[in-house]
């Protein structure tokens, strides 16, 4: 029983991480039709920013940890916004080229990160509690999982609130449904594009800092390794659906944990889930209709 609890909660923790990355991917694709391969780099840069801060100020203090979270999110948002403004915008409505440009960006940035920080993983320090564990119903759970889950829930709530209560949120929700009609109402959707990129980047950057604590280290490939899973989760949940991304994140991560523990085939199970969903329901669990 305690094993099941452990797997469930760590699965939720992993799912939280997936969601932090997938939320941005889903919104970006939903609104703009862009497959953002550089999303992993937003995560990695956020992680490195958080790392650099704790390195300089001392990683075992709570204020520093929280500050690193904020910094990671800010750096991720800035990087993402710049990407949109300088690269994506120039290729307006040219989705394949936009995806290609993000491919180039991901290749270049990962290499740059390796150049700056080296190829070996760098270990991070954290407040003591984070590295410790808590016992729940007999299961011993690493505490950083709880932080992840809380963070993901906060991000989800935050994004949902943003979408419900702000004008940009309104524009984004409408644009995900029908982009051309939004322009036909006299609205410049392009501004919303930058906002969506920034939101995705912030979530990814935050996820990056948390991922570095989850795995215990930062490296240039941190984002890339998570990105594949994030893509899979996004597609399963339905491109463009935030709720779908949330549900799929949890489902995939929990199943992955169980499959890994009992049979060692977690990765394979994820891939099979993707293939299965795509073949049975091409638009994902909650996605808008993908034109086949």
């Amino acid at each position, binding site marked *: 029983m305690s094993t099941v609890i452990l797997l469930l909660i760590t699965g939720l923790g992993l799912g939280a991480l997936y969601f932090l990355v997938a939320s941005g991917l889903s919104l970006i694709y939903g609104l703009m039709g862009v*497959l953002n*391969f550089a999303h992993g780099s937003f995560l990695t840069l956020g992680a490195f920013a958080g790392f650099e801060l704790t390195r300089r100020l001392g990683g075992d203090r709570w204020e520093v940890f929280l500050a690193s979270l904020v910094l990671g999110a800010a750096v991720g948002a800035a990087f993402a916004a710049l990407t949109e403004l300088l*690269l994506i915008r*120039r*290729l307006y409505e*040219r*989705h*394949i*080229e936009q995806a*290609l*440009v993000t*491919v*180039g*960006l*991901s*290749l*270049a*940035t*990962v*290499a*740059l990160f*390796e*150049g*700056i920080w080296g190829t070996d993983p760098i270990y991070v320090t954290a407040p003591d509690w984070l590295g410790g564990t808590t016992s729940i119903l007999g299961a011993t759970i690493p505490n950083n999982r709880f932080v992840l889950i809380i963070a993901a829930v906060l991000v989800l709530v935050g994004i949902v609130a943003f979408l419900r209560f702000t004008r940009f949120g309104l524009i984004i929700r409408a644009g995900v449904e029908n982009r051309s009609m939004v322009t036909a109402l006299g609205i410049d959707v392009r501004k919303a594009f930058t906002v969506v990129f920034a939101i995705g980047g912030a979530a990814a950057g935050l996820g990056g800092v948390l991922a570095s604590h989850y795995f215990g280290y930062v490296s240039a490939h941190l984002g*890339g390794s998570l990105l*594949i899973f994030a*893509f*899979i989760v996004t*597609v399963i949940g339905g*491109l463009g659906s935030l709720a779908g991304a949330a549900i799929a994140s949890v489902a995939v991560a929990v199943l992955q944990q169980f499959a890994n523990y009992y049979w*060692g085939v977690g*990765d*394979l199970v994820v*891939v*099979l889930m*993707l*293939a299965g969903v*795509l*073949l049975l329901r*091409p638009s994902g669990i909650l996605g808008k209709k*993908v*034109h*086949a």
Partner: protein
Amino acid sequence: MSATTPTAPAPVTPDPAGRGSAVGRVLGSRWLPLAVGGALVVLAAVLPLLAIEIPGILPGPTYMPGTLQLLSLCLIFAALALSYHLLFGTAGMLSFGHALYFAVGAYGLGIILQRTDMTLVPAIALTVLVGIVVALGLGAVSLRVAGISFAMVTLAFAQAGNVLVRRNAWLTGGEEGLRLNTTNVPEFLVGVLNTRNVYWLALALLVIVFLVVAWFERSRAGHVAVATRENELRVRVLGLRPFSARLVVFVIASALAVLTGTVYFILQSGVTPRASSADFTLTLLVMVVLGGVGSRWGAIVGAVVYTLLDQRLSALASSDAVASLPDVLRIPLSEPLFILGTLFILVVLFLPGGIAGTVRRVGSGRRATRAARDRLEEAE
């Protein structure tokens, strides 16, 4: 020219340069590409016998094994890029999993050589056969969807393949990779001194792949595939079946990739899991786009340029000249992929037709840029 009625399907035969200019007319004549291609093959074939040096690009004179190794790699990736061109450029199928078949070729041959007593040629044949079966199976499943979904399914299968390779170290050597078992491999292909024989093998591979791709594109099936890319509805209305056309293209392209993988295995005397990674397929995508989507020789040029650049930049990165630069310059220059990635971004932003497209513009002017961008987008 204005059309008052729905326009006829766009012409499919390749038109290397625009009509009208004198250069265009010469370049557009049908025999020129054939003649030039033949001349290039002959030139390439005699390279190992010559002592041509291109400092800065080639590590040494062309008869040296090191140089031939690099050139062979160029040829192999050119063949692989050609097979990807068939898939993406001609049939408009964006796949993120093409590397899987390359890996099937390399690992397949490796496993067969290690575990059986088959000699080289039957082993290659068997590998290709296995590849065809896999492609048929996975292709039939993947092609039930199209566009982004298709791309994602191919990614998923390739990821699965990658995971399988990494986990089954007993069969594939895991992270360490698989080494070439030379027991049943002909002498003349083994060893550093015989690199030039492998070079000729790679050249033969490229020629074969090119001929297959060219033949297919000119065939009726090829025309259907192109028509499917441009306007699927029209193809259906004509009573043809897009699914079959796509599946045929998929299997042929994958089989060619498998074949390329086997030659790669021989050249490198082994293979590592990187060959099955999503990163590798993305590299392929970069090669094809760099060279110019939709162009056969563009794919070749893109692969050769990329491979040479990658090699040269790596050499540059570890050179003394770079080590002595201030950090701001040293760090980017010591990472070949950074330069390649940035170059790729610039190409996509400003030269959407790639190298082939830029050359084409010489003949036909600015309209080609617009056409090149539209061409890329047709892949959806």
